[in-house]
């Protein structure tokens, strides 16, 4: 096992408070909410496990293994967060083909999911929703949103579809950012682009093909 202090990025001499803060920051970074439907979610889940184990280990060492009540709160909340990743197979499917699509998406087999959807002629709300999910995994964010929109229009009462659309519209606002605000409109206008050409030479090239 890796050194738990190294995993959390703190010195062994760090106070309990510092350890907790480091843990919370990392837990926020690798939290399942931040890797919602992300093709790399499995890697984030591994990270999360490592961080949880390290935090647990440090707390155990510091409490001397005894019953001392030094286990911090905040730990338990993140433990099983990744369990919710079963959502695609957990949803109610209207047909066995669409159920297979959900399984394919969940296991990361996007090509198969796409092929199954292409051969499915009933373009109902669920089909549109799953098509959106496939687009999102591929990085086709604009298409994903449009399919989710269609799914919501066809079945306005469906919470699963609405949640997906809501994420496309506002999801990144709550994304992890080391200093707070995530988003293009969040950044202050200045001193933006004073960074230009510090070392030159770049310019000759740019002019060729901009």
């Amino acid at each position, binding site marked *: 096992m890796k050194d738990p202090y190294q995993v959390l990025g703190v010195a062994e001499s760090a106070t309990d408070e510092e350890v907790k803060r480091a843990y919370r920051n990392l837990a926020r970074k690798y939290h399942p909410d931040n890797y919602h439907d992300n093709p*790399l979610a499995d*890697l984030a889940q591994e990270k999360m496990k490592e961080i949880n184990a390290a935090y647990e280990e440090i707390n155990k060492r510091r409490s001397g293994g005894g019953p001392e009540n030094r286990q911090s709160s905040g730990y338990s909340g993140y433990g099983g967060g990744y369990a919710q990743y079963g959502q695609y197979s957990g949803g109610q499917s209207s047909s066995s083909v669409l159920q297979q699509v959900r399984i394919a998406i969940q296991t990361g087999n996007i090509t198969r999911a796409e092929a199954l959807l292409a051969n499915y002629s009933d373009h109902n709300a669920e089909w549109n929703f799953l098509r959106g999910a496939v687009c999102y995994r591929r*990085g086709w964010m604009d298409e994903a949103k449009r399919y989710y929109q269609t799914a919501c229009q066809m079945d306005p009462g469906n919470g699963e579809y609405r949640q997906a659309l809501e994420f496309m519209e506002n999801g990144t606002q709550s994304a992890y950012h080391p200093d707070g605000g995530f988003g293009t409109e969040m950044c202050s206008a200045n001193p933006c682009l004073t960074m230009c050409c*510090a070392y030159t030479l770049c310019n000759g090239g740019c002019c060729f*093909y901009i």
Partner: protein
Amino acid sequence: MFGYVRPPLDDLPKEEAERFRRIYCGLCHTLKRRYGSAAQFILNYDFTYLAILLSAAQEDEIRQGRCIVSPVKKREYFAESDALTVAADESVILAYWQMRDGVSDHDFVHGAKYRAGALALERAYRKAAKNRPAFDAVTRQQLEILSALEKENCALIDRPSDVFAQLLSGAAAEVEDPVRRRVLEQLLYHMGRWVYLIDAADDLKKDVQSGNYNPVALRYGLINGEWTPQARREFVQTLDHSVHMMTTAFELWDFGVWTPILEKTLYTGLFRVGKAVLDGTYQPMLRGEDRKKRKNGEEST
């Protein structure tokens, strides 16, 4: 690659800015050694990021040397490494095909500078293509897809940006560690997507005049290249999703000494460039002379 991915140098500690400069110079020296001085002129920040992402977690050996930009004072730069070699080869291929693309996009007069650029790079390109045949084949194939989409006036933004995104993510194809490869492919894919979309947004006005294909204008039905609040909101959402994909990928690999530069670039630099482009205040990189003039002008006002 158009130089939109940049480090917010003002926000970086001096040593980090210096590290960035050393790899920038390292790539320049590598280009010159492998492809001659004509190839140095393709150097830009985007290609530097490619070198950074492909670099090892520790610093490479530091060399000292003079160059055209700094003919008197010796400057430090990173010695040629595998990452710099790959970045140099792939940069030459990308730049060459981009210039060829420029040739076919423009009429005879306006295509002149692209023709000149492609001609100057011809020899370098042939060598680079020999070094990286797979990358060259993918690049050529993807740009053909792009030109077909342009011809049919494709009004979707994901399809044309996918072409460019795949090109960049292909740069990670030879990375051995499977986890690192997945992380880099994802990061580079969305960097490519973001760059393509930002470039289209930056060209809105220009393309209205020239009549060139602009997927962003078509997708949002923009009139005279003017943003509506609704269209801008939707466009920002899609950009921010790509930045989010980049940051989440970035956090899953240890980039060692490059972590501070990458972190600032991804979490701060991209948003600033994006906002400036949308606000119409974006300044492309200036030639040395223009830069001096502008600086002097600012001081005197």
